[in-house]
């Protein structure tokens, strides 16, 4: 596996919600082709916001990019619609398992593959690929996704994104709610795709142990700002940094750090 040119880069991105609540105030990060990058940070650091910003979903949350640039595959990503980005291979798994609740698990997956306009046979084999990764989903494929268990929903959401055969997969807390074996399974599978197909991955995780174990590099956010950027191996070693980025709750003492300041 070779690491090529820059696939995605964020530079000095600032973002607000509702033109008022500042959520990002200087996020920079890069993902090169074939790389796995972890985005770490405490609760409210801005991971989700950064990921939404780069996949064009911020406007749908009434958020705005106030400054900075986001370049995906050599083009300005802020000018492209989310659908265009997906077609260009940038697919995101949203935080909090946004499944299509009334669609069955299988229909969820099919919708995920729709951008590719597959024929029946190809669709079948793609589905099989996902079911091989998440056997649990095969058993539940006729159940409306909204009724399945939390973990099953999470698998559905990840599977749905994989159906689009992304070049850059953006994952927001994929391990949340998943059994340890499944988490390992997912990361192993992603790693395989990364190795075999050059899939690049950007993953925001609280579960930093898992994330760092699999990532090549990591960026750390704190209160909407990139504060650290380095190789995952380094970060794994350094306890001081761990203590630094893991954050400490939002007691009165650190309230200022986690309460966004008004613009």
């Amino acid at each position, binding site marked *: 596996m070779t690491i090529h040119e820059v696939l995605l880069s964020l530079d000095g991105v600032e973002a607000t919600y509702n033109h008022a609540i500042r959520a990002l105030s200087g996020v920079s990060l890069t993902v090169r082709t074939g790389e796995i990058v972890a985005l770490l940070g405490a609760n409210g650091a801005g991971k989700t916001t950064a990921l939404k910003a780069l996949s064009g979903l911020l406007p749908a949350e009434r958020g705005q990019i106030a400054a900075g640039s986001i370049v995906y595959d050599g083009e300005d990503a802020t000018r492209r619609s989310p659908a265009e980005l997906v077609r260009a291979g940038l697919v995101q798994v949203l935080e909090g398992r946004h499944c299509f609740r009334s669609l069955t698990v299988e229909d969820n997956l099919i919708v995920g593959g729709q951008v590719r306009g597959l024929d029946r046979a190809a669709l079948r084999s793609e589905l099989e690929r996902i079911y091989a990764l998440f056997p649990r989903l095969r058993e539940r494929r006729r159940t409306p996704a909204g009724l399945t268990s939390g*973990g099953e929903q999470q698998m559905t959401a990840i599977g749905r994104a994989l159906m689009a055969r992304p070049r850059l997969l953006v994952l927001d807390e994929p391990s949340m709610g998943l059994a340890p074996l499944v988490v390992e399974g997912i990361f192993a599978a992603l790693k395989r795709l990364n190795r075999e197909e050059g899939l690049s991955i950007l993953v925001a995780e609280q579960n930093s142990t898992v994330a760092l174990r699999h990532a090549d590099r990591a960026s750390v956010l704190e209160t909407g700002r990139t504060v650290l950027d380095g190789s995952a191996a380094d970060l794994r070693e350094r306890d001081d940094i761990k203590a630094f980025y893991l954050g400490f709750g939002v007691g009165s003492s650190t309230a200022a750090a986690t309460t966004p300041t008004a613009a």
Partner: protein
Amino acid sequence: MPAVLSEPVVSPANGNVPSALAVEAVSLSFGGVTALSDISFAVAPGEIRAVIGPNGAGKSSLLNVVSGLYQPDRGRVWLGGHSFAAVPTDRLAKLGVSRTFQNLALFKGLSVLDNVAAGLSHRLRAGVLAQVIGLPAARRERAEAHARAEELLAFLHLDGVRDRPAGTLPYGIQKRVELARALVARPRLLLLDEPMAGMTLTEKRDLSGHIRAARDDLGTTIVLIEHDVGVVMDLSDRIAVLDYGRLIADGTPDDIRNDPVVIDAYLGVAHDLEAGEGI
């Protein structure tokens, strides 16, 4: 695979050890999908009991049965000396049971303080008119509720976001607010469905402390679903393991850690655990 029960279930009806919670031969299925099949187990007062198992094993369904959101097809639930075929959700709070949800279930439009204070709703005696007019009894009640809520905010380090609408908070903090809402009523039985999902290690450690404190200080019995095995092993007195709706193991953390059936179904190879999220 036969259910491995490390201890016979004591039915509160005839047994000598009164349990805070017992489920007796509970089965539940959804049109062909068996979510729970013939589950029986009891939780002793003051115990921290974890429920673990693969995704879709039926853990949340079990809590939903206990809190009356699902009606079991068969079996009974014992809560504080009462036995129910279907637990009446409306009376849950009065029975001293509170819970959190796997997917956030906060009142997004209410401030954090009001969310937590809402946990005391079942205690309110004053009528609407008394509240509107501001009769002394109503005022006192209200002030007490707020005082209690403030206490919990401080306890869970949430006072910094006291007045923020809960919906605008980051995920991890919302989870904590939900815990505060469940704790504020000082429940006898607290049901937690993945309270630590989406938290950092430090936060998990904090929260574990709080949960333990709740048990130690208030004597609350706790049933906890959690996927972070490190947390589970560290925190719980006993662990029940579900797989495909069946109870495949029930025992102390040590029992469970080394149970080959459990390792197979859930934990994976032992070394993963060591390298995992130990606290």
